[in-house]
C-alpha cells in the first residue's frame, strides 16, 4: 500500500512535468514577442515608436484594458464612452493581454509605460494624444491625525521641491540606471513607526527589488520619515485595499501613485501633488519586430528573470512559507474547532446546535475573500494584527465548519446499534463515542477531509487581499517586474501541486493508520500470552 501511494505520487509528478514542458513549448514556440532587454531600449529622450493606433479617436470602439480600482476606469468612460472596458488585476496581466491581442490598448501612467517598453519592444503608446494630465499625491485619513501628518508632509514636500531635490529623484527613478536607484535607510525614529499602505506592483513608483519594496514614492516617504523622526513600515496589498486600509486605520497613510480625483477627495485627504504626469493609451507597435529568441534561450531567460535576478527565488520561498503557515495553522485550529463544536452539539443541546447552525450559515454563506476582508477591516479593524493572523482565523473558521459537517456526516453513518451495544455493556455516553463511534466514523470521512485540505491550500491564494504575501501574491509581485505571465504562473501552479501532493500524502498515511484491518495479529493481541 505504501509503495502504491509512492508510485501514485511520482506518477503525478511526471504528469505535471509533462504538462509543464508542453505548456512551455506552447508559450515559447510562438515568436510573438521579443524579451531581450538589449534589443530595444527606449529612453525618455528617444522618440516613441509608432503604434498600431496613433490617436485616441481610433480607439473609440475598441477593447480597452483597465486596472480594477484604478482612477483610469472613470477616465476611459469619459474619453472613450463607446469603448469596451475589460478589467484586470495587475499591469502585467494587461501587458500580456495586449501582446496576446486580447485587448487593443490599455491605459496607464507614462513613466510606467516607459518601464514596460524597456522590456517589451512590441509595445508603445500614443504619445501625441494623452487621455489626461494627472497629479499623484499621498493620501491621508480624514481625521485629525491624518490632517496633522498631511501638513507635516506638505511642509516637507515644499522644502524638497524648492531645493530641486524632487527633480533629482525623478531623474533617478525614471531613468535606466538601476544601480543608483537606492533607498535611504530609515532609522527606528523617536515618534513611532508609520505604517504606509502601498501596492508594490507599480514600477517605478513602488515595486519589489531584492525582496525589498523600493521606488519613487518609497524614496520620498523614506526621506520624509527620516527628516521628521518617524520609523517606517511599508505594507503591501492589492490596490483595492489601499484606501480602505487608511480609512479603517490599518495604515497611517498611503503612497501608491494615487491619482487625485474629486471622488477620492471625498473620502481621504490628499497631500500636495508630488508628481505630475500624463495618462496614455498603450498599444502594440505598428510593425512588431518578430525576432524570436528561440525556445531554449527564451525559457532560460524567463527562468533567470523569474527566479535568479535580484534573488527572486527568495520571494517564492517566503511566499511558500506564508502559505504553509496559514495552511498548517488553519488545519490544526480548524480541526480542533470543528471537533470541539461537534462535541458540544453531539448530544443535541438546542442552544449549542442553534448557535452552530447560525454560525455555519454565516461562515459558509460568505465568500472566503469577503470573510477575510470583513475580519481584517471591520472586526479586527482597530486592533493591530497581521494579515497572517487574520488569515489563520478566517480559514480556521471555514475549515472548522467543514470539519464539523464531516464529523456530523461520519458519525451519522455509524449504525445506531453500535451505541446500543456499548450502552448495554455499561459504557458511558462519552466513552462509547470515543471507543466505538469515532473510530468507525473517521474512515468514512477521511477522503473528504483530504479534499478539504487541498481546497484549503488553493483557497489561501486570496490572502493577498489583506496584505499577506503568500505564494500567489509573490507570483504577482514577480510578474509586475518581469511583465511576463507564463513562467511565474506555471511556477506557482507547480508549487501548489507539490504542496497539495505533500498534504494528500500525509493524510493518506493517517488513513492507513485508521484502518483497523491493517493491524497485525501481534498488535491486536498486544500484551496477551497465547497458549493453546
Amino acid at each position, binding site marked *: 500500500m505504501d509503495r502504491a501511494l509512492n508510485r501514485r505520487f511520482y506518477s503525478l509528478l511526471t504528469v505535471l512535468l509533462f504538462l509543464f514542458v508542453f505548456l512551455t513549448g506552447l508559450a515559447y514556440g510562438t515568436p510573438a514577442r521579443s524579451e531581450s532587454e538589449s534589443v530595444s531600449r527606449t529612453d525618455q529622450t528617444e522618440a516613441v515608436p509608432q503604434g498600431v493606433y496613433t490617436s485616441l479617436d481610433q480607439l473609440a470602439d475598441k477593447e480597452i484594458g483597465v486596472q480594477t480600482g484604478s482612477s483610469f476606469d472613470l477616465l476611459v468612460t469619459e474619453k472613450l464612452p463607446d469603448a469596451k472596458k475589460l478589467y484586470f488585476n495587475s499591469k502585467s496581466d494587461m501587458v500580456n493581454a495586449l501582446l496576446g491581442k486580447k485587448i487593443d490598448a490599455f491605459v496607464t501612467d507614462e513613466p510606467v509605460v516607459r518601464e514596460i517598453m524597456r522590456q517589451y519592444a512590441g509595445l508603445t503608446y500614443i504619445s501625441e494624444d494623452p487621455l489626461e494630465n494627472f497629479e499623484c499625491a499621498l493620501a491621508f485619513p480624514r481625521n485629525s491625525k491624518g490632517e496633522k501628518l498631511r501638513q507635516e508632509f506638505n511642509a516637507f514636500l515644499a522644502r524638497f521641491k524648492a531645493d530641486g531635490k524632487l527633480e533629482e529623484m525623478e531623474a533617478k527613478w525614471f531613468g535606466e540606471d538601476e544601480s543608483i536607484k537606492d533607498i535611504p535607510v530609515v532609522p527606528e525614529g523617536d515618534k513611532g513607526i508609520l505604517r504606509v499602505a502601498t501596492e508594490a506592483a507599480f514600477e517605478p513608483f513602488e515595486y519589489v527589488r531584492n525582496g525589498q519594496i523600493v521606488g519613487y514614492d518609497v524614496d520620498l516617504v523614506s526621506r520624509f520619515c527620516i527628516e521628521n523622526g518617524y520609523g517606517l513600515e511599508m505594507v503591501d496589498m492589492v490596490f483595492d485595499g489601499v484606501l480602505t486600509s487608511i480609512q479603517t486605520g490599518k495604515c497611517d497613510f498611503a503612497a501608491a501613485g494615487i491619482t487625485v480625483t474629486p471622488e477620492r477627495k471625498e473620502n481621504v485627504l490628499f497631500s500636495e501633488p508630488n508628481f505630475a504626469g500624463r495618462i496614455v493609451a498603450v498599444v502594440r507597435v505598428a510593425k512588431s519586430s518578430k525576432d524570436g529568441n528561440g525556445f531554449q534561450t527564451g525559457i532560460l531567460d524567463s527562468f533567470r528573470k523569474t527566479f535568479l535576478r535580484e534573488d527572486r527565488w527568495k520571494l517564492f520561498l517566503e511566499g511558500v512559507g506564508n502559505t504553509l503557515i496559514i495552511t498548517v495553522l488553519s488545519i490544526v485550529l480548524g480541526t480542533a474547532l470543528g471537533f470541539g463544536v461537534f462535541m458540544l452539539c453531539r448530544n443535541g443541546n438546542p442552544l449549542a446546535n442553534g448557535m452552530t447552525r447560525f454560525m455555519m450559515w454565516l461562515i459558509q454563506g460568505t465568500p472566503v475573500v469577503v470573510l477575510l476582508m470583513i475580519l481584517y477591516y471591520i472586526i479586527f479593524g482597530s486592533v493591530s494584527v497581521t494579515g497572517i493572523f487574520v488569515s489563520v482565523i478566517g480559514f480556521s473558521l471555514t475549515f472548522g465548519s467543514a470539519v464539523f459537517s464531516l464529523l456530523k456526516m461520519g458519525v451519522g453513518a455509524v449504525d445506531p446499534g*453500535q451505541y446500543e*451495544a456499548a450502552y*448495554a455493556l455499561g459504557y458511558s455516553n462519552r466513552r462509547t463515542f470515543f471507543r466505538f463511534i469515532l473510530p468507525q466514523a473517521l474512515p468514512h470521512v477521511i477522503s473528504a477531509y483530504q479534499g478539504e485540505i487541498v481546497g484549503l491550500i488553493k483557497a489561501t491564494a486570496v490572502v493577498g487581499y489583506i496584505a499577506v504575501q503568500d505564494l500567489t501574491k509573490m507570483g504577482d509581485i514577480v510578474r509586475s517586474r518581469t511583465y511576463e505571465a507564463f513562467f511565474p504562473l506555471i511556477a506557482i501552479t507547480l508549487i501548489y501541486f507539490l504542496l497539495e501532493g505533500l498534504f494528500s500524502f500525509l493524510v493518506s498515511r493517517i488513513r492507513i493508520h485508521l484502518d483497523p484491518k491493517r493491524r497485525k495479529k501481534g498488535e491486536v493481541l498486544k500484551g496477551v500470552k497465547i497458549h493453546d
Partner: protein
Amino acid sequence: MIKIEHLKKEYPNATPLRDVNVEIRDGDVISVIGPSGTGKSTLLRCINQLEKPTDGKIWVDGVEITDPGCDINKVRRKMGMVFQSFNLFGNMTVIENIMIAPVDLLGKTKQDAYDTGMRLLRTVGLAEKALNYPDELSGGQKQRIAIARTLAMDPDVILLDEPTSALDPTMVGEVQAVIRDLAKTGKTMMIVTHEMAFARAICNRVFYMDEGGIYEDGTPEEIFDHPKRENTRRFVRRLKVLELAVSNSDYDYLGMAGEIRQYCNKNQITPKLENHIQLAFEETVQYLLIPALENPRIRVIIEYSEAEESAIMTFRYNGAPLNVIEQGNGLPLSVVKGIIVETEYGITDDEEYKNQLVLKLRQ
C-alpha cells in the same frame, strides 16, 4: 430480582405498554411471546433503560433503576443484552469484541479477558474465528459471538431481543442450541421470540403480551396447553379471527360475504374451506336464525387455525334458548349438517347474546 410496577411507555403515535406489573425471580427463564406491536421488545429495553419509561418504577436487586440518580451504567454491567441485529463492534476483531468491556469496565487484565474470551468462543464453537472481523462472519456466527460477548461480563440477567429473527432459517438452529445450553446454567433470562416450540423447550415461565401489558403469565404448560384467556388461546393456536355483527334482518349480506372472502384470501384458506365458511354463514344466519328470531342480533366469530387448516364458527344470538341445529329443519339445515363435523350448543352468561352455537367445519 427484577420488580416492575405500573410501567408505561408512550410514543407520540403509539402506546405499546400501558400498565405492566410483574416480578421476575432469580433463575427464571422467561419467554416473552405475543403478536407484533404489543411491546415485547419495549419491555426488555425498558428493563435495561435503553428506552426511558414514560411512567412507573423498576427495581433490579433492590435498586430502583428508574430513579434519575441511579448509575445505570453500573446496573447494565450486570445485565447482558443480545440484539436482533447482533451489533458487534465493526472496528474490532471477534476476540477484541469480547475482551474490551471486561478490560475497560470490570478492570480485568488483558490476559484474563483473553483467556475467558477464548473459553467462551470455544463454548460457542468459534475459537478459530478469534482474529476475524465481524463482517467476515455469517449471521449465525455473529449472533453466537454476541452471546459470548454478553457472557464475558458474567451478567446476572441476560435479555435476548429476538435473537434469531434476523437469521437465515439455516442458521437459526446453531444459535438456538447455544441459547438452550445457556438456559440450563441457571442464569436469569428473558427472551423475546416468535419460535413457539423453542420458547416452550427452554423456559419455565411465559409472558403472553397483548393489550398494552402482560396479558397472561404462566408456566409453558399453562400458556401453551391450557390458556385461560381468549387472545392467548388464539395466539398459541395461531388462530386467525374474523368477527361479524348482524344487528337487524336487513343487514348488508353482500358486504359481509365480501369481508369473508377477503379474510380467506389473506389467510390463504383453501377454496373448499372458504366455500364451507360462506355456506355456513349464509344458511345459518339467513335461513335458520333470522326467520326464527324476533329482533335478530347475531355475532359471528370465524377462527381459522393455520396449524390444523381447520375453521370453527361461533354464532352468538339473542332471544330465548334455541338450538337451531336440533330444532330447525328443511334444506338449509341439511346443507349445514353436510359441511360440519362437530357442533356444540350452550347458554352463556351474556345477557345480550344468550345463545352460543359452535360449528366445526369440514375441511
